[in-house]
Every structure is written in C-alpha cells, then in structure tokens.
C-alpha cells in the first residue's frame, strides 16, 4: 500500500474543482501552475520509489485486489506520468501568453486539469473498467479543449471527433463485457493469472482485436488515423500540443499494457502478425501524408501518425529490447512532439497563419524560434545526442535481432522521410524571404514567454540524450517488468496460490 500512487490523480482533480469556483484569471493561472508542479514533484518521487522498492500498489478503501479498485504504478506507468507532468507544465506556461482571453475565461484551466486526471488515471489504473472510465474522463476534457473558441472549423472537427470516439467507446464496453463473461474479473493482474491458467481456444484473440480497435483509434493507428490531423489542426495551439504530445500516447500505453499482460496467448498472430503489419502501415502512410502537406500543424499531425508506428513496432516485435525501445520512444515523443507543436503554435501566433507558403523568413525576423524549431526537429528525426536517437536505435536493433530486416529497413527509410518533412517546414517557414505579416514583435514579452517552455522541453530532450545510458537501464528494467508480468501480478495480488483458482 502506498498512498502516493493516487496523488497524480487527486491533485489535478482537486485543483480542477477549485478552479471552477473562481473567475479571477490570475488566480486560475496560479492554481493550475501549482497543481501541475505538484504532480510533477509527486510523479518524480513515485518513479524513484518504484525504481528502488518495486511496483507500488494502492487498494482504494483498503479492499484487497481483485475485489476493490486498484491503482498500480510500475516503472512504465511511473515514467509516463512523470513525462506527462513535464509536458503539461510546458503546455500550461505556453497557454498563458497564447490563449485568448475568452478561451481562458471559458474554463480552459479546469478542463486542462481534468484532462490530466484522465491521462494519469489511465496510466495508473490496475483495472480494465477503470481504464474505460479514465479514458472517458480524458476524452470529455479533450472535447471541451478542442472546441474551445467555437470557430466554424473547430466545431465541425470536434463534432466528428466526439462521434467517432463515442462509437468506439461502445466497443470498449463490449470488450470489457466479453472479458468479464469469460474470466469473471476485471482486475488486470487477476485477469492475467486466469488467462495464463486457462486456454480460451482463440476467443481471447477475438477480444484482443476488439480492444485493438479501441486503443488503436485513440493512438491513431492506420486505418483509424483519419480523425487526427483535422482535429489537431482545428483546436487551440496549447491544447493541441498536449494532445499531440500525450493524448495519443495513452492509446499506445493501453496497447502496451494489455498486449504484454493480458493478450499474450497467441503472439504469433496478435503481435508478429497483426501489430507488425499495422505498425508498418502506420509508419509509411503517416510519413507519406506528412511529406505532402503545406500546413505547419497538419504536417506535424501526420507525422504523429508515423511516429505512432514506431511505438507499435516495439510492441509488435515483443522482445525485451523492442519493448524498451517503445518505452524510450514514448517518453521522447512526449517531450519532443509537445515542443514541436508549441513551435507551430508560436509560429501561428507570430505569422497569423499556419500555411507554410505564407510565413517564410521567420528565421530572419524571429531567430530564436527558428533555432528551437530546428533543435526539436532534429531530436524528432533522431540525431544524436538528442533524445530521439536512442529509442529509434533500440527499435531498429530489436528488429534486426529478430531477423526482420525488411522491417528495420522500413523504419530507417521512414526516418529519412521524417527528416525530409521537418526540413521542408524549416525551408519554407523559416528560411528564405520574409513573407506575410508579423503580428508579434521579437522583443515583446509575449514572444519570450512563448519561447521559455519550448526551450525548457528542449533542455529535457538534450538531458535525456546525454543521460541515455541511465534512461536505457530504466527502460530495459521497465520492459522486463512488462514482459514477465510476475512482479506486477505479485505486487497486486500478494502471495497467492494458483490452485485456489480451481481452473
């Protein structure tokens, strides 16, 4: 029992409730900042505890698993919560100068706190139905943030986003029902034990596919990616940066958790077959979409899809190195993708448009923004010593070790495509003659306030690159924990006797 596990959920929940009570913006900003900083501190403390003492568990109301609500923090979820908090801090600092007054007054800050509740809850829950509840909480807040401002395009795209997600939530419930009907429990550790003790004769694979549709939509896995670019280009810049950096990774986390703990009956079909093909398709179609775009945000949004393919690749290979690569890649993306979208948001604020052909020459007029963009872009591509390199090399190496040479080749070629896409943005938007308007002065307080959070994220990215060895140790340990599952199961269920299951 460790009460710290619930803190990343309770702190933003309380802050969100308090934020609804005040309409004073200065106070709202202060409270949300304190809340996110607190979550970051707690998350780092939690990660340190998990590292030294093993998996941490909280039984709500002291009802032991599998009967009560359980929250579990293992190495993977603790790391994801910590990096989420970092991204959230940067996004919040960026929101202060970039949001309009109307957006701030219409509950951006409470919505953001509840979004954080949903994300952290999804990472920490040890129960498949609570995963559904936290997903819905996260989605509800994201609907609010996506529609905030009420421009024509935003309303239209948010409506589609809500509709698609509400249909897929139905699939989630159906999957939960099927699991409950088959195994009579919803606690993930208990489910893992029951699954390992019985042979479902292929039925589990059907359930696995059902959940893959749900989590794949959240993560924007091809062919369920079509909603992402449009939704992400319509919403306010600060919200989009958090969606891009963190929200799509929650889907990947859910796949990572369920496909290492629960759906491991037939990896030859689910992992090496289905997931591998989906990973390859996601990488390729995502990058092809990105290369052809002439819009800053839309190009980056398609690039999210292609990066999701890499994360899926590690799970599909289903080797310790592959899973470690996925963990590394997710935390890297949480930092770098957020930074890139913040750059796009700052460029939009400066030039008044996101169209690449109407904002040329930003490097001449707003030099520091060009520099931060270039560093973030190189980190995304995976130029050492920035953070992207180490996740990618682990994934490629894992593919080579499993003798999947074509897969490794695709991963490398897609990486070159990413380089082309981000350099295209640099060439059109930052290089060349000065085109279009400049709405924000380079020396203004506003511009500096937008640059600080981006620079902060880049410092984290460089630190992750320089401390790659430690990070790799951590990721390898996290992968071991995920793959064996024993530490997780024993932490949740305690010492138990398999024969008591009567299966």
């Amino acid at each position, binding site marked *: 029992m460790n009460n710290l596990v619930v803190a990343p959920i309770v702190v933003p929940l309380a802050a969100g409730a308090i934020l609804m009570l005040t309409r004073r913006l200065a106070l709202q900003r202060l409270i949300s900042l304190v809340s996110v900083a607190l979550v970051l501190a707690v998350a780092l403390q939690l990660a340190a505890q998990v590292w030294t003492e093993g998996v941490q568990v909280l039984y709500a109301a002291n009802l032991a698993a599998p009967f009560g609500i359980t929250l579990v923090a293992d190495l993977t979820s603790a790391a994801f919560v910590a990096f989420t908090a970092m991204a959230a801090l940067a996004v919040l600092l960026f929101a202060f100068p970039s949001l309009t007054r109307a957006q701030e007054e219409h509950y951006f800050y409470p919505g953001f706190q509840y979004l954080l509740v949903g994300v952290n809850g999804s990472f920490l829950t040890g129960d498949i139905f609570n995963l559904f509840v936290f997903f819905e909480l996260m989605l509800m807040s994201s609907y609010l943030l996506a529609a905030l401002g009420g421009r024509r395009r935003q*309303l*239209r795209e*948010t409506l589609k986003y809500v509709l698609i997600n509400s249909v897929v939530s139905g699939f989630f*419930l159906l999957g939960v029902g099927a699991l409950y009907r088959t195994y009579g429990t919803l606690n993930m550790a208990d489910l893992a034990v029951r699954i390992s003790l019985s042979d479902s004769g292929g039925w589990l694979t059907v359930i696995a596919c059902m959940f893959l549709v749900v989590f794949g939509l959240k993560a924007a896995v091809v062919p369920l990616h079509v909603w992402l670019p449009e939704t992400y280009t319509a919403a306010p810049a600060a919200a989009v940066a958090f969606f891009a950096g963190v929200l799509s990774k929650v889907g990947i986390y859910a796949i990572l958790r369920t496909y290492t703990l629960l759906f491991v009956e037939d990896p030859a079909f689910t992992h090496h077959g289905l997931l591998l093909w989906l990973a390859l398709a996601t990488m390729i179609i995502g990058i092809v979409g990105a290369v052809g775009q002439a819009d800053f945000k839309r190009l980056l949004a398609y690039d999210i899809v292609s990066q999701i393919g890499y994360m899926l690749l590690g799970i599909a290979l289903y080797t310790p190195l592959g899973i470690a690569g996925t963990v590394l890649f997710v935390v890297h993306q949480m930092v770098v993708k957020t930074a890139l979208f913040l750059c796009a948001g700052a460029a939009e604020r400066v030039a008044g448009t996101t169209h690449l052909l109407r904002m040329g020459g930003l490097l001449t007029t707003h030099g520091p923004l060009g520099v931060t963009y270039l560093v973030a872009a190189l980190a995304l591509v995976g130029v050492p010593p920035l953070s992207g390199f180490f996740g990618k090399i682990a994934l490629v190496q894992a593919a080579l070790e499993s003798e999947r040479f074509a897969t490794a080749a695709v991963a490398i070629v897609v990486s070159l495509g990413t380089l082309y896409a981000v350099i295209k943005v640099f060439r059109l938007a930052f290089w060349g003659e000065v085109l279009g308007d400049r709405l924000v002065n380079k020396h203004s307080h506003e511009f500096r306030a937008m640059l600080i959070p981006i620079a902060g994220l880049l410092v984290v990215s460089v630190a992750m690159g320089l401390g790659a060895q430690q990070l790799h140790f951590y990721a390898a340990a996290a992968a071991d924990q995920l793959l064996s599952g024993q530490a997780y199961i024993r932490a949740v269920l305690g010492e138990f006797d398999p024969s008591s299951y009567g299966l």
Partner: protein
Amino acid sequence: MEILLSITIGVVVGSAVYLLLTRELLRVIVGSVLLGYGINIALFMSGGVAPGAPPILAEDGSMPAPVMDPIPQALILTAIVISLGVFALLLALGYRTFEDHATTDVASLTGVEHE
C-alpha cells in the same frame, strides 16, 4: 430470456448502425447514443441472466439459490452516466455546428479546405 435479450441487442444495434449511416446530423447523433444502449444490454448479459433473482445476498448473509451478478449492473450504471454526458455534449455541439454551417447534412461537413 437470453435469446430474447440477444434479439433485442441485435435490433437496437442494427437500428443504431442504420442511423449512424444516414446523412442527417441529428440521426447520426441519436444513432451513436442508441448504439451505447444496445451495448449496455450486452454488458448486462455478461454476468449471466437469472430472471427474478436478486443481485444481493439474503438477510441472513447466505447466497440465494439463483443470484444475479451485481457487477455488470454497476458497470452499466457508470456507462449510462457517461453516455448521458456525451449525449448532452453532442446535442449542444451539433446545434452550434448547425448554427454556424447552416446545414445538417453530414456530407457537406467534410471540409478539408484551408481556413
């Protein structure tokens, strides 16, 4: 009883899919909510169906002979509350979209132009 409920689920989900595939915005919204209801019944059945049986223990703490599993019922309760919230949001969002776009035809809401 299970057969009857299965047929009900089929009819409800079938109607929902039909509504989801129409071009009228309000119908699509109602369809997505109806789909949720169909799936709620399926979830209800996941604990097994024992007609007339209570989902609680008897007064002396013993388990009555046919007993309903209360867990799926609790799950549905949560799911209904969530779907109510999403329904309200969808209606509001749908109405605002109709106001701004002056149409409820889904096909004219595609839009990939640069605005």
